[in-house]
């Protein structure tokens, strides 16, 4: 589809840019490289650099060709004249370039000026000669015919046609080292395997109708509400986004200093202020951070409801664990948390408990989902807000570190080589499976504060 758009541009441009330039032999309808760039920049409101890039792509794909004969398709932003390729040769037509045509082209080149065939072209020519030796007479004859017909045209036309052809073959048979612009990824079929295609008629449409029916009855939220939610989320997380607000002490990729990672390691003793703040955004953020989760667990212990979090963790293990472990995990969970009189009995409402116990007869991965959700909501609506208001959390906020801004290095020769950190695959598996980054020595900024 991009080719269609590219080709659409040409007639537009043609209309605006048909400046007549005179060369030694008069060739109409040429455009200068710089004009192309300017026009693109103007029409699409983009920078010169981007316009040059876009124009360059057009040339690479063979929609524009240079008239002076360098065998490379590059857009130069100066007076170099270019012309638009005739639609016959556009790549969007997707006609495969025939070997026979290529042979004829190469032979013509050979005949016209003996020995002008460049390295790879000569190789190709020889290859084709061998492959089509039985047809070679035809090839030579065709080549001669075309050359004779060409002689009868004006010099200007001849030059134009030669350039057109050359560009076409440069695109379709690129010289070695130049990536071919015609390469595509593996073929994608529009219709999948036969099975799907056949059932498209009855099953498929029944499903579609079901889905549409459900869609009609689904509760939708007003756009304004959803969009406001984005604004809120983005502004809340903005200060935490290194790309938007930078990061302290410095972005490791920019300064080669990985202090930022050391300070924010998954199991660091003193978390940074930003990190502690993030725990207040949502319950999910708190649980996802191992340090946050540990502190929350401590808090729950003071409230004697730590078994809730443990139960939730056990359910997560069930949901994401291996298939073979399901029975064992369910058993363990039942014994520890759900059995009457269990050591760490969790407080679930009777209906959910009944349903869960029933489901335990045939344990499967999602059998504890209801109970897990109930406990999760309990923690979220009850314990979590209390945690945020608790003295423990406030202390954490107060003690949290704000890393100093690394002083700008004026002389980059002081840069230390980046230290490697051990791969997670080397460490013994910890409970959360997170690696601990090795502190890379006493470096922070210039180190001489």
């Amino acid at each position, binding site marked *: *589809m*991009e080719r269609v*758009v590219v080709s659409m*541009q040409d007639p537009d441009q043609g209309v605006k840019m048909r400046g007549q330039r005179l060369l030694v032999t008069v060739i109409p309808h040429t455009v200068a490289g710089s004009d192309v760039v300017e026009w693109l920049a103007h*029409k699409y409101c*983009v920078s010169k*650099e*981007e316009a040059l*890039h*876009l124009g360059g792509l057009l040339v690479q794909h063979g929609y524009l060709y240079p008239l002076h004969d360098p065998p490379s398709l590059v857009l130069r932003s100066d007076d170099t004249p270019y012309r638009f390729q005739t639609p016959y040769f556009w790549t969007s037509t997707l006609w495969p370039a025939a070997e026979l045509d290529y042979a004829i082209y190469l032979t013509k080149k050979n005949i016209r000026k003996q020995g002008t065939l460049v390295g790879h072209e000569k190789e190709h020519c020889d290859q084709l000669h061998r492959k089509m030796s039985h047809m070679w007479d035809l090839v030579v004859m065709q080549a001669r015919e075309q050359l004779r017909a060409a002689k009868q045209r004006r010099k200007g036309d001849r030059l134009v046609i030669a350039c057109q052809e050359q560009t076409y073959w440069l695109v379709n048979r690129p010289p070695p080292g130049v*990536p071919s612009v015609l390469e595509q990824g*593996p073929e*994608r*079929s529009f219709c*999948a*395997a036969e099975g*799907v295609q056949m059932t498209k008629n009855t099953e498929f449409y029944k*499903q579609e*109708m079901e889905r*549409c*029916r459900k*869609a009609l*009855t689904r509760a*939708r*939220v*007003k*756009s*304004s509400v*959803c*969009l406001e*939610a984005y*604004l809120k*989320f*983005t502004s809340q*997380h*903005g200060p935490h*986004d290194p*790309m*938007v607000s930078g*990061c302290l002490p410095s*972005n*490791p*990729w*920019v300064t080669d200093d*990985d202090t*930022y*990672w050391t300070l924010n390691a998954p199991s660091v003793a003193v978390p940074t202020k930003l990190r502690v703040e993030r725990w207040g955004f949502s319950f999910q953020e708190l649980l996802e951070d191992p340090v946050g989760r540990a502190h929350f667990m401590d808090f729950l212990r003071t409230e004697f409801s730590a078994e809730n979090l443990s139960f939730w963790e056990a359910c997560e293990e069930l949901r*994401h*664990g291996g*298939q*073979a472990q399901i029975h064992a995990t369910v058993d363990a969970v039942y014994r520890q948390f759900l059995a009457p009189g269990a050591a760490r009995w969790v407080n679930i409402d009777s209906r959910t408990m009944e349903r869960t116990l029933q489901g335990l007869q045939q344990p499967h991965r999602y059998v504890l*989902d209801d109970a897990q*959700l109930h406990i*999760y909501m309990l923690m979220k609506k009850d314990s979590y807000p209390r945690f945020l208001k608790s003295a423990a959390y406030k202390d954490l906020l107060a003690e949290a570190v704000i890393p100093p801004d690394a002083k700008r290095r004026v002389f980059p020769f002081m840069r230390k*080589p*980046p230290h*490697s950190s051990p*791969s997670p*695959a080397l460490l013994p598996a910890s409970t959360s*499976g997170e690696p601990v980054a090795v502190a890379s020595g006493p470096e922070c900024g210039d180190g001489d504060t």
Partner: protein
Amino acid sequence: MCDQTFLVNVFGSCDKCFKQRALRPVFKKSQQLSYCSMCAEILEEERAKLHDVELHQVAERVEALGQFVMKTRRTLKGHGNKVLCMDWCKDKRRIVSSSQDGKVIVWDSFTTNKEHAVTMPCTWVMACAYAPSGCAIACGGLDNKCSVYPLTFDKNENMAAKKKSVAMHTNYLSACSFTNSDMQILTASGDGTCALWDVESGQLLQSFHGHGADVLCLDLAPSETGNTFVSGGCDKKAMVWDMRSGQCVQAFETHESDINSVRYYPSGDAFASGSDDATCRLYDLRADREVAIYSKESIIFGASSVDFSLSGRLLFAGYNDYTINVWDVLKGSRVSILFGHENRVSTLRVSPDGTAFCSGSWDHTLRVWA
């Protein structure tokens, strides 16, 4: 998404205006009613009222972003052919990348050292993923399978020997991703299906049918209940699935060409998609519609890969015209264009802590930008 699927020729008394007219079935709050066409139109209007404001209007209040400067900070050279896919490790510096010649390489991109390399028995390895624990990688492509390799530093062990073949599809593997643990993998394939597998046993846990053509990409939702994922395919549809039941929960069909890449907004309420029609679009799950289009007339090549920055303010999109465009998600405008690659950008991921993003390209290199 169709609103009126059925046209039933029933004549009778309209449930709203009580006139005798030809009726259509209409659903209002899960109740089926029969409205005449006049009243049905009014209902349509009411529904349209739900979409009461555009994103860029709401975003006018938001501060504009400052001058945006991002440069290539690392260039990873080592692949002998087009880089097709990459993924970050949770330790924020390691990445795994796969290429057309069958090589899968694990790098420490901070030091640009290669740590592991595996040669797959097939070419076009289009999918690779790092396990959450950092101890294994998964990859697949034209071999129709997804294989998991545990990472080992033991010089005596050949990594290929420990390979575990997990997924089996009937066509190429286009995308794979571990779920919250090392034990399960979600895959998308050219045979039009997605599937959830147990890594240890290779058992198929759930399969997802519904796409009418090759599925090209998928992404897991970052939600707290963590049960859904979105997939995009050559049938121009993006579908949201419930992992537990295997049902498609929502579908969006506004793109005009193959969807190459889908990625959730960090809050999980929306997702963005990049497509061959040269646009990226943002779909909201609660409003059940497309809320923004990121496109420019000067961009005529398809977007191959998209990802959000940590806060969701920026959308990075890699295109087939060798560039990366950075979009302001809220305002809908382009913030910046990044040059540097010498061939198509095939894959792009933001690092887990949002400090940088990595792009892989058909020019055999990967670049980390910050």
